[in-house]
């Protein structure tokens, strides 16, 4: 593999105006386009509602995925049911597509560990990972287990571009190269790591080129083009399943929202920049494309908006009606068998709760 100065051309199928240069890849059919669109609209509705819940004191600190819906959607649609997904914390769309209901995702940000008790497709998936890039080494471990057992499965891990500065990212990618692991790293390059912009995060021209040193394939896609994300992940999954090793996908996007609800991005970036980024956001372009293809009309749009609102409202009601977990749960899941000192402390916690009036 030889390094040349600009080896990575961003892959894009649907441009910002909803136009397709040439044709869509063979992996994309109409059904997939419609599913992608519906998912992204659902997740945006969800995202905005969760931010509103936080603003009204009904939600903990929340990390919005505004503007990055195509990445999560593309991954969620391309990754296999038997594969294992290791998220960072802007993966609402992927988790939704892997059977983690919206109310359960609210429960996570609302502060209840039961939110990570996944079932269905995500039963082996890792929960959100807050310590930056550590999930990438876990993904290498998951992929190692699959390789050791000779299974036709892979792990897929996400992280932000800031995470690619961290040792865990390099160490895991290095292992993925030398052990030929069935593993996919998708970097959500949303240009901002809280207040630190991409251009002072790394001197590397692209994140994708970091793959070169690890001896694995890396390339950029337009992270706001769900078709490009889907096609890239689909390719990488197929490659991993056939024993051909790991892939680094840099999905170029933009964080339209604050880092989290505890952040105020106006302190460090201009309105002009954000307004400009809105022109490249992922949903409008596919909507335009679907209209032009005759696959979508105003009536369908109205219905979808209404459906999304209703589903999200239902999730909000479920989330708000869930009681806090029993205090015993703090102690009962630390070890398979609860040691004596924890049994005693559990009793203390129960007594403490009683003193608090049971709440």
């Amino acid at each position, binding site marked *: 593999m030889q390094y040349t100065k600009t080896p990575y051309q961003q892959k894009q199928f649907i441009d910002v105006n909803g136009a397709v240069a040439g044709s869509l890849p063979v992996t994309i059919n109409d059904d997939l386009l419609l599913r992608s669109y519906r998912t992204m609209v659902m997740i945006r509705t969800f995202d905005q509602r969760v931010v509103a819940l936080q603003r009204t004191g009904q939600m903990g600190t929340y990390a919005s995925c505004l503007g990055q819906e195509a990445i999560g959607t593309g991954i969620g649609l391309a990754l296999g049911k038997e594969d294992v997904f290791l998220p960072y914390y802007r993966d609402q769309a992927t988790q939704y597509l892997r059977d983690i209901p919206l109310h359960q995702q609210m429960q996570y940000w609302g502060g209840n560990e039961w939110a990570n008790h996944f079932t269905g497709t995500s039963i*082996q998936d890792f929960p959100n990972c807050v310590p930056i890039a550590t999930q990438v080494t876990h993904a290498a*471990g998951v*992929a190692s287990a699959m390789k050791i057992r000779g299974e036709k499965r892979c792990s897929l891990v996400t992280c932000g571009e800031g995470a690619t500065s961290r040792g865990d990212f390099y160490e895991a990618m290095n292992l993925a190269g030398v*052990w030929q692991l069935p593993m996919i790293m998708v970097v959500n390059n949303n240009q901002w790591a809280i207040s630190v912009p991409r251009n002072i995060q790394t001197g590397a021209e692209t994140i994708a080129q970091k793959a070169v040193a690890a001896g694995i394939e890396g390339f950029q896609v337009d992270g706001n083009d769900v078709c490009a994300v889907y096609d890239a992940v689909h390719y990488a999954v197929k490659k991993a399943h056939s024993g051909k090793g790991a892939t680094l996908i840099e999905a170029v996007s933009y964080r339209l929202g604050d880092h989290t609800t505890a952040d105020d991005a106006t302190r460090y970036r201009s309105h002009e920049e954000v307004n400009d980024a809105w022109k490249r956001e992922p949903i409008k372009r596919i909507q335009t494309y679907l209209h032009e293809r005759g696959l979508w009309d105003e009536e369908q749009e109205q219905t979808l908006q209404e459906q999304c609102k209703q589903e999200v409202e239902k999730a909000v009601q479920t989330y708000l009606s869930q009681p806090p977990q029993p205090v015993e749960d703090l102690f009962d899941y630390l070890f398979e068998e609860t040691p*004596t*000192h924890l049994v005693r402390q559990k009793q203390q916690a129960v007594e403490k709760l009683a003193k608090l009036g049971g709440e």
Partner: protein
Amino acid sequence: MGMHENIATLSQQHKPVDSKTPHVVTMIEAINMALHRAMDEDSNVVVLGEDVATNGGVFRATVGLKDRFGHRRVMDTPLAETLIAGISVGMAAQKLRPVAEIQFMGFIYATMEHIVSHAARLRNRTRGRLTCPMVLRAPYGGGIHAPEHHSESTEALFAHIPGIRVVIPSSPTRAYGLLLSAIEDPDPVIFLEPKRIYRMVKQEIYDDGVGLPLDTCYTLRQGEHITLISWGSMVHETLQAADKLQQQGISAEVIDVATISPLDIDTLVASVQKTGHCVIIQEAARHCGVAAEISATLQEQAFRSLQAPIARVTGFDTPMPYLQRENIYMNSASDIVDAAVKTLEAS
């Protein structure tokens, strides 16, 4: 990496395990024997770390494993401790039972984030959906005139973390039994091996695959006048001290804590209630050491039985000195005798 061997083919080459004949072995050989036994009995057990495969480990703990179980299950990793801990978490979540070696405890700190934030919490934060049955082995402690960063005893760092076990053997028998139990344990275990006694004594061991219980102290000698509590290599000096005290007519009870977290405090309380005197001996620095936790808990639970303040024999609150002055940092049997006599005189 040569992940080409077929696990089934390899297991056919296994020598039959001889559990009827006693083996006279050192602690490091006992560890090696336990690793062979665990890998033999459970194909989910895998061994990984730096130099563990072809070289058999710098202390020889993993010698022979690669030849017997193949590259798929005995893996030389890149030289990256964070990675070793991180992939162990990933493997364990997939229901393998990784036994990872960190070459020296001085290099274990790079693993801390994965131990604290992931291994220790995975079961809890997924409410039992994902678990982390991994063992992180590391040689630790001073007294072998090693270079800097090769002699520390920082077990207390791990004992402070909720959700993991910290286990320290002090003899070949307990190394074999405790390591087998650590590997079988459904939760993460930090298994710290006092390397000064790797080859100090030999014991007769049956390779019968029987583990010794975790979360329990081992009372090595019954006594009436004073309780001596220790773990790791200092157990040897403590036993020597008990001999010397016996010559002075003092009967000392010697307890090897063995699992420093979670702590079997009931055994320690019962002993102190009997003897009324207690000295805790740790090789590690004094401040916030495991001895401090034991002392505080004994004070809470056995205050009325104590006839004198609890004494601690510990290292200084300095880094372990380079090898020329290791002797001034480490404690001997006579330091323990002095502390015991002083404690008895204070009552």
